[in-house]
């Protein structure tokens, strides 16, 4: 199992934000994406997850191994913590026992019967990230996972990401915070920033 991106171009709206992104990850590797706001970290993760097409280049990855966690936590406020996790366990086919194990692992068992709309932002984040652990998938794509987490839980998730990679998984994490993941490589996306588009718009050409 591996993930390789060769000369990937990413488009956000009509604008090309990243050009020629190259990297290869083998099993057990962790990649941290850095770069200023708007450079295209989220866009690249969406492309890797298969949620958006790459504007160019070749992406070699098994889509059935991807677990994606975006800015939003994908939590239903009207369901309890346990129900939210059981739903995802059902979707990923991993079963109720896995949901229980995940809750214990991330300290969510004490709030299992609380409705998700009563959770704080950090607790929601933990619930959202716990889904990755539950999915049983080996390639984790995380967009700013540590937002609104306290120091203790940042450490918990750093350990979880490190464990995942030690177990042969792959993780790609976009972040502004320094994460203490020993084996991680860092990729600065600033170097792939595409130059302002100078090519003429054919529609406007015809029109004018």
């Amino acid at each position, binding site marked *: 199992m591996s993930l390789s991106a060769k000369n990937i171009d990413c488009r956000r709206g009509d604008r090309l934000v990243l050009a020629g992104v190259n990297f290869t990850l083998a099993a057990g590797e962790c990649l941290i994406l850095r770069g200023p706001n708007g450079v295209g970290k989220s866009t690249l993760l969406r492309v890797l*997850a298969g949620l958006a*097409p790459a504007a160019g280049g070749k992406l070699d990855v098994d889509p059935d191994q991807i677990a994606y966690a975006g800015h939003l936590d994908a939590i239903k*406020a*009207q369901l309890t913590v346990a129900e939210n996790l059981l*739903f995802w366990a*059902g979707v990923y*086919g991993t079963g109720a026992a896995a949901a229980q194990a995940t809750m214990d692992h991330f300290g969510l068992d004490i709030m299992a019967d609380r409705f998700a709309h009563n959770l704080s932002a950090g607790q929601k984040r933990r619930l959202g990230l716990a889904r990755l652990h539950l999915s049983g998938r080996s390639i984790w794509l995380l967009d700013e996972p540590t937002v609104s987490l306290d120091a203790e839980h940042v450490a918990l998730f750093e350990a979880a990401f490190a464990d995942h990679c030690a177990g042969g998984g792959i993780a790609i994490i976009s972040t502004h915070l320094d994460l203490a993941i020993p084996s991680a490589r860092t990729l600065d996306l600033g170097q792939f920033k595409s130059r302002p588009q100078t090519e003429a718009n054919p529609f406007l050409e015809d029109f004018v």
Partner: protein
Amino acid sequence: MWALFRRDLALAVRSGGGFGLALAFFLILVMFVPFGVGSDRAILARIAPGILWIGALLASLLSLDRIFQLDSEDGTLDVLATSPLPMEGITAAKAAAHWVTTGVPLTVAAPVLGYLLGLPAPAYFWLVASLFTGTLSLSFIGMFGAALTVGVKRGGLLLSLLVLPLYVPTLIFGAQSVVRITQGLDPTPAWMLLTGLSLLSVAAMPFAGAMALRANLR
């Protein structure tokens, strides 16, 4: 798929769900008709099938935008799209859940409201039969419309404009299956066409909805 279907049912009956919405709207609409039209029982009995069918159609339209919009807003749709569920399975499960939470309650409530309008006795069976199969096509066609407009903020107007023309055949055959029995004619041809339409929607719309969702996620 089963997990998604069950979760949608649970969400619909929890607070803020769409379960009561369609039913309340249907009730209010039909109860207001005698106030507007007058209490002449002959007129009410004559327009009852049409009113009940239009009421059911508009009531099920009301909760359509919730099918995908809520999941899109909280990021669930992105995660579902990368999950092992096929997109066609997601759209089918969501439309089926919409039918169970709107179409079935509307079907159950319709005879009571029919009695309120003085619907003639032989028409009750066909009213229930036509709504039971007809609302299935309302949910599945509506799900397709919801999938098309999922990226549009407050796309309710666009959704109605897209879906209402597609609802016309369902409304015609549905109301006709009830009207024909009140006129002493055989309602089975209209009902068969209606059910055929519903089966076609159930078979085709999940695929159309999945294509629309894939295009909208980009």
